[in-house]
């Protein structure tokens, strides 16, 4: 899609972003959420990279005779961002595994149900606090 000029790229980004974001907040499955999160982030990466692009500019590696390069800065930022993304995913997955071991499921609803049970188990009314005695 390199030849398509103008704002099209941004709109693709927006679409992907919406897709990923939607998965994150609507889906109950934790793994799916993480996938969505990754999707979401990737779309942001594209957003950055495409702003760094210059039409018929070359990759930002010094070569004799090439004058216009794409902007290296967004690339740098995104390199960082990608790594951050994968780091987040890693921690997230580790959490999911622990959750699975603790709850036996990775479905948000079921987990929340179990939590509610825990809470209510803990929340029986306070035993009436009797008067205090002298030392």
């Amino acid at each position, binding site marked *: 899609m390199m030849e398509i000029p103008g704002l099209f790229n941004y709109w693709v980004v927006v679409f992907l972003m919406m897709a990923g974001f939607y998965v994150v907040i609507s889906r*109950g499955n934790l793994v799916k959420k993480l*996938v969505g999160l990754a999707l979401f982030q990737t779309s942001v990466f*594209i957003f950055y990279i495409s702003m760094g692009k210059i039409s018929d500019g070359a990759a930002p*590696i010094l070569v004799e005779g090439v004058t216009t390069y794409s902007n290296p800065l967004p*690339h740098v930022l995104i390199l960082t961002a990608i790594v951050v993304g994968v780091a987040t*995913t890693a921690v997230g997955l580790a959490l999911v595994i622990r959750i699975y*071991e603790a709850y036996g499921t990775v479905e948000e609803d079921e987990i929340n149900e179990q939590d509610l049970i825990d809470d209510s188990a803990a929340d029986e009314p306070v035993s009436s606090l009797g008067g205090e005695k002298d030392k």
Partner: protein
Amino acid sequence: MIAIAVIRLRDLFAVIILFGIYSLLTAALFMDLNAVDVAFTEAAVGAGVTTVMMLSSLYLTSRWEATPKHNSLLPLLVVCITGAVLVYASLDAPLHGDPSSPVHQHVAPRYIEKGPAEVGMPNMVTAVLASYRGFDTFGETFVIFTAGLGVLLLLGIQKPHKPQPELNTVANEVVLKVVVKMLIPLILLYALYVQFHGDFGAGGGFQAGVIFSTGFILYHLAFGEIEARRVIPTCWLPRLAALGVLIYGGVGVFALLEDKPFLDYSALADDPVQGQHLGVLLVEFGVGITVFSVILLIFHILAGRSRQS
């Protein structure tokens, strides 16, 4: 598009594979947007590492996603608002690829014009990455370190149990073993190339680290866990990661001791450009080590985990 499929599908396995393909496509897109390094990383990290991690953790959890009970209207609304804002935003955005857009005006030119001269390496990305915005990369390395640490904290290291049959079937494939034996040196060699060639062509610490670790992961798959851990004991990996970060930080602190600002590589040698070059090399090396050990660590942990649950 694949994104849709990712939303629709309930089979998480397929979802993840699709996601991998999707990342590859993104990488291709990056490539064609002249973001060589980014494409490289996305391919290695997004398509490679992420997928592997997701799969192995999927193996530890359940494969099928339940049909969501709660209705997804509110989320849809939120998403639409977000999307609307974004489109709204994009309306005033400078045209894609337009050289005159402010992005290309203010800061960037300096990198492009002076970068090679000041830092002394043709790959501007590496220059910016490791020198101009070296501190970002420093932070980034710490992010990886943190991630490894987080996984370690969460899952801990299990003792390797005796390999399970289905792994043996793989492990007994003599041919495969041989192939792998031949492959691994190549991979490692390539990794080293990427590592140290980063300042000329595409690549650098991250990519190198990833490739390096994939080499070992391959070995792990082929020869089973025990073998793999004999080569590099898991308990070393965190220390190795720490070491990598320390190398990076050490360079910075060295500059401090020279009473130059933190991470000022020109402190490393008399000729600033030389110093820059040296600094970048060292730093990239540190990054490489950290990335490699963290990824391998995570893989070991996940793999070791899969035995007992």
